[in-house]
């Protein structure tokens, strides 16, 4: 077993564990924090996969902004426990079955029907650097950039509109 594999195993275990913890935690805040942890672990994995820029983006945007937003909302709305009684008794068992099935199928595909070369090609030096990704972005994918910015604007506006207090009828 190479060090890469061991490293990878450790990271995997961490990622899966945090994910499961997020899933099983009864406290919403804990769940959120576990997810943040998960994102950080995955960001590390990105680094290891020569996607430095993306890793940083993941940490800054995903873990730093999005999850913080989640945290705000959780604090705002309710980390309260929800009653255990539910009308959907079959939901959990079926979910387990189908989820397991999905995992099994995907695992089967990836493990027993591999495609592509067995060994990974060497990585050029600047692969995954901000300069490389940036130049690709602003040359090939200029239009999507602009559209994405508009999208962000729209979502900002939408969020504000949605959370505006209702106008009282008689002012």
């Amino acid at each position: 077993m190479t060090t890469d594999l061991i490293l990878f195993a450790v990271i995997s275990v961490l990622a899966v564990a945090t994910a499961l913890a997020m899933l099983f935690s009864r406290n919403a805040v804990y769940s959120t924090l576990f997810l943040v942890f998960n994102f950080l672990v995955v960001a590390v994995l990105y680094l290891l996969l020569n996607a430095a820029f993306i890793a940083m983006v993941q940490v800054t945007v995903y873990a730093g902004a999005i999850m913080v937003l989640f945290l705000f909302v959780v604090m705002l709305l309710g980390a309260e426990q929800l009653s255990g009684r539910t009308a959907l008794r079959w939901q959990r068992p079926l979910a387990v079955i189908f989820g397991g099935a999905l995992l099994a199928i995907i695992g089967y595909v990836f493990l027993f029907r591999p495609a592509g070369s067995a060994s990974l090609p060497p990585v050029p030096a600047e692969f995954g650097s901000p300069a490389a990704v940036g130049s690709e972005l602003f040359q090939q994918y200029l239009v999507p950039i602009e559209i994405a910015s508009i999208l962000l604007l729209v979502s900002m506006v939408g969020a504000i509109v949605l959370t505006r207090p209702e106008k009282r009828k008689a002012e």
Partner: protein
Amino acid sequence: MHVVETAQAGGLFAYAPLIILFPLLGLLVNLLVGRRLGERFVGLVASGAVVLGFVVAVLQFLALRSAPEGARVVVADWIAIGSLSVPWALKIDSLSVTMMLMVTGVSTLIHIYAVGYMHEDVRFQGDPGRYTRFFIYFNLFVAAMMVLVTGDSFLTLFVGWEGVGLCSYLLIGFWYEKGAGGIGNALAGKKAFIVNRIGDFGFLIAMLLAFWAFGSLRFDEVFLRAEEMGPAAAGVVTAITLFLLVGATGKSAQLPLYVWLPDAMAGPTPVSALIHAATMVTAGIYMITRNHVLFELAPFSSNVVAWVGAATALFAATIAVGQYDIKKVLAYSTISQLGFMVAAVGLGAYVAGMFHLVTHAFFKALLFLSAGSVIQGVERGHHHAAQDHTAHGGPPFDPNDMRGMGGLAGRMRTTFTVYLIGAVALAGIPPLAGFFSKDEILAEASRQDPIVYWLLTAAAFLTAFYMGRQIWMVFFGRPRSSAAAAAVESPLVMTAPLAGLALLSVVGGALNLPGVHTLGHWLEHSLGVLEAGEFNPAVALLSVGLAGLAVALAWLLYGRTPLAEGRPDPLRRLLGPLFVGMENKWKVDELYDWLIVRRYVDLSRFLAETVDGRFWHDWFHDLLLARSFRRGTRWLSDGFDLPIVDGFFNGLARLTGRAAGGLRSLQTGYVRNYALALLAGAVVVLSLLLFG
């Protein structure tokens, strides 16, 4: 060879169609403008039309003098189908001209008389508006009669035959709302029409037989072929002639179809005079004479004709003896005299028959018109008497009843005179016309058939008797009612034609004096040379003697001791039940009613109520058809449409509903369920892709 070839029309013959046209024009003018232009105008136009017709008849007579074989005037094509060709053609020969002259001549006089008579009659009956209508019908009658006598074929003759029947009906029921029970006159008209119909049916069958046997309807052609076929056609010819006799029986009021004529007296008197004495009723005799070829070929039929005529003559005469209505006596007298004519043509004495036809027309028309004068005189008297006295109870006033007359000789001189002339002529007393014509018939009968002879002689005896009875009852003795006592003579417009007819009755015998045989020679051209009857002094003497005896008897019973008011007829005591029979017309009408009419009504009722009503309507239609149809449709709707068709679609809908309901349960509303479904689907698809 009896059939005479006729030349094509030319010269005066071409005017022949006018004889039909003038009366038609007269009636059209009266129809269109008559009502507005008044009685005077209407009478003038109507009489004028007939006068013009007489003029045309005279022209034809003159034309025949120069061309005795006659002519055939074709007016237009009428029927041309295959082998049947019946053009509208007039046959102008001495026979038809004789009839033309007689009819138009007598019609003229009667039209003039009617101008005066109807003037009073419409006021007496209370509807002056009908004056015009009368003359329209009268002219129509003359036109139809002309069609009849000038017809060149069976069919054209039949058209006229039907036409005069129609006019007879229209004129008998002229006062249609009057009469017994408010419809008596209308019923009389209906009776005349229906009884005539029976005769017409016989005529129609004869016509069809003729066409079937001989392939044509024209007289000339039929006669020619009948003669050519000779004995081979004997059966058919007998059948044809017998059916022609049936037709004549109807139209000329012989046994057994005479019953309509006495009832026809419900019409105004000029109608009785013209139609039911002089012209229409003679159509039967004319028709037989026209078909003399066929009758000569069928001796059996001729015998039947003679017997029918003789029997009718006697039978009707007996009834006439017991009648009290002045017109009814004359009606039965007419039937009796027609019997004489029919007997004559049955014996083959066509000339004698035609002779008597003409003379009878004169004096019978005279008698009827005079009777009309008498009736109106009594009506006028009643009017005066009613004005003098207040209304008194008693039997309703009947101007026709002889028992309410009497002593009119003094009050109505002219009428009495002409009536007497007519009566004497009818009785057959020389030298008036009736003697010569009747005697010729009797002479012929004595030579051929003794039974017929004795029947006719007896009838002649009774004729003289009942005329005498009538004269004494009406004109002599003392008036038996206030009306008669106040009777007034008729105006000149009525008495002048009477005088004309009286003159003709006196000199009419000259038409065919024995030895001279003017009419006989004249008719030769149409009928072929016939054996002229010689004058038989024995027969003549016997008939005159019997007539005188009869008159004497009548005087004995009615003249010597005039009938007093309210007393019964002396014959009742003498003859007892016989007289009752005579009085009641031997109950023939009642017999017919019971035997035929009532049976027919029962049959109709049966057919209507049982067959048509109960069977056809109630059972077949309502029960069978309607109910089955309803049941059928109800089964279709309730049993088939509702459960099956509706059920199918309803079931479909319910199925959809249930399916939808079932599927709706998938929409739980829970997002998690939907997500689960998504996942399940994704798993399935992946599995299929991978392993499928």
